[in-house]
């Protein structure tokens, strides 16, 4: 399924899942397909306080580095370090392999994010 119905999406091709009082963030099928084979995921700063749209980490394919962004203001609470030894998991299972978790700041909302059909239109 390239655009799961139960997730929210950013214009910069991240997906967001709500898990209790945290958001879980990864990159979409479309993103990994555009990037090609991924060879590095990192620069996620656990504990960092970010604004919406701030750089939250980097994914690198063989060809180029690509920043990933915080979907809302908040604090980064975890990095999925399974991706350190196996960045290719983002190619094979982009929705099962999250990149970072964050605690959204007061007032941060999902309202600014796209639903599945909105994202489908955005990448059409």
């Amino acid at each position: 399924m390239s655009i799961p119905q139960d997730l929210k999406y950013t214009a910069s091709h991240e997906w967001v899942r709500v898990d209790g009082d945290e958001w879980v963030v990864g990159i979409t099928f479309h993103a990994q397909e555009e990037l090609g084979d991924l060879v590095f995921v990192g620069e996620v700063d656990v504990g960092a306080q970010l604004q919406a749209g701030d750089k939250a980490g980097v994914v690198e394919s063989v060809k180029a580095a690509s920043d990933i962004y915080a979907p809302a203001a908040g604090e980064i609470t975890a990095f999925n370090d399974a991706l350190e030894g196996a960045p290719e998991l983002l190619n094979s299972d982009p929705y099962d392999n999250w990149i970072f978790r964050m605690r959204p700041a007061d007032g941060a909302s999902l309202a600014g994010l796209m639903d599945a059909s909105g994202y489908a239109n955005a990448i059409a």
Partner: protein
Amino acid sequence: MSGTSDSSAAAPLRRTPLYHAHLAAHAKMVDFGGWDMPVHYGSQLDEHHLVRNDAGVFDVSHMCNVDAYGADAEDFLRALLANDVRKLAIGQALYSCMLNAEGGVIDDLIVYRLQPSEVPRYRIVVNAGTADGDFAWMQQFAQQRGFGLTLRMRRDLAMVAVQGPQAWAKFAVAQPALAALAQQGEGLKPFHAVEAGDYLVARTGYTGEDGLEWVLPASEVHAAWDGLLAAGVRPAGLGARDTLRLEAGMNLYGQDMDTTVTPLECGLAWTVDRKTDPARQFEGRSVLDAGPAKRSAIGLKLLDRGVLRSHMAVRTVPADGAAPQIGETTSGSYAPTLAASIAMARMPAGSAKAGDTVEVEIRGKWYKALVVKMPFARNGKALV
């Protein structure tokens, strides 16, 4: 995530005669210097490993074949190029830089000495992005110095490279007559070629593996490609081509050298021939003779996690606390055969040698890298 916006081309991209073959093989096409070319056919990493372990085929028809023939063809090339074609036997090739008057590299290329007809004949293969400029330069050079020869751009020809330990075996299945021609006598040695009409088959390549490059009429290349695929050769794109050549320690024009760099500064002193004929005058020689190079090329292997790219600052870590010397990476990538990241870098001459640890700046932070001798890999295996 950045970097995924679609871009529409401002001008139509040029296509090789294999354009539709790439679409049929599900290539991801990209703008490569104005050409619509396949970066991969599914997985750049798979295609890289395929060439190191089996056989892959690259469309290199965007590169340009130039014929040079006439009474003065040898004298022309000996004045034009830093390497000396005088040492070539018929059927032999060499790799050379073509320099401007300042000793800077206009292009790197391969020259083949072919069977003479009534006059000496040579074939020059130049890079896609520099072909038009190279041809204009060669014509002007010949005219200004009064060399009697004809130069012809052969855009009627296409070219494919079949590379890997199984390249020759699979080529023999697809093209038994051509393979038999190449295998005559003691067989084709590296940097040698056989000719049959408009076909040229050369034991050359840009991957560090055994294989061949095949020049043939553009009208025939799609059928030839299909025949290679039927013989078990799989398509490989420009992404894999770049990681393969980098691991093999081979320069990429426009990145590892350009007109501001002499061959002595980019690891190509071995292609400058001042020995076969010490009296030979070639364009740019006086600058090379004027003194030792102030910069030199080194290989780097990243010791921390991450990926080296071009234009990253490199600094030495002197043991005695002296000021670090600064240089820059020229090419860098993840290297699939090494499962590590590597780069070529240009440093002040003598500032760093194999075995030293240096630091490279990646997005504002310094990471440790080891200076290593190139090539990084050959014949399917990592060397560092």
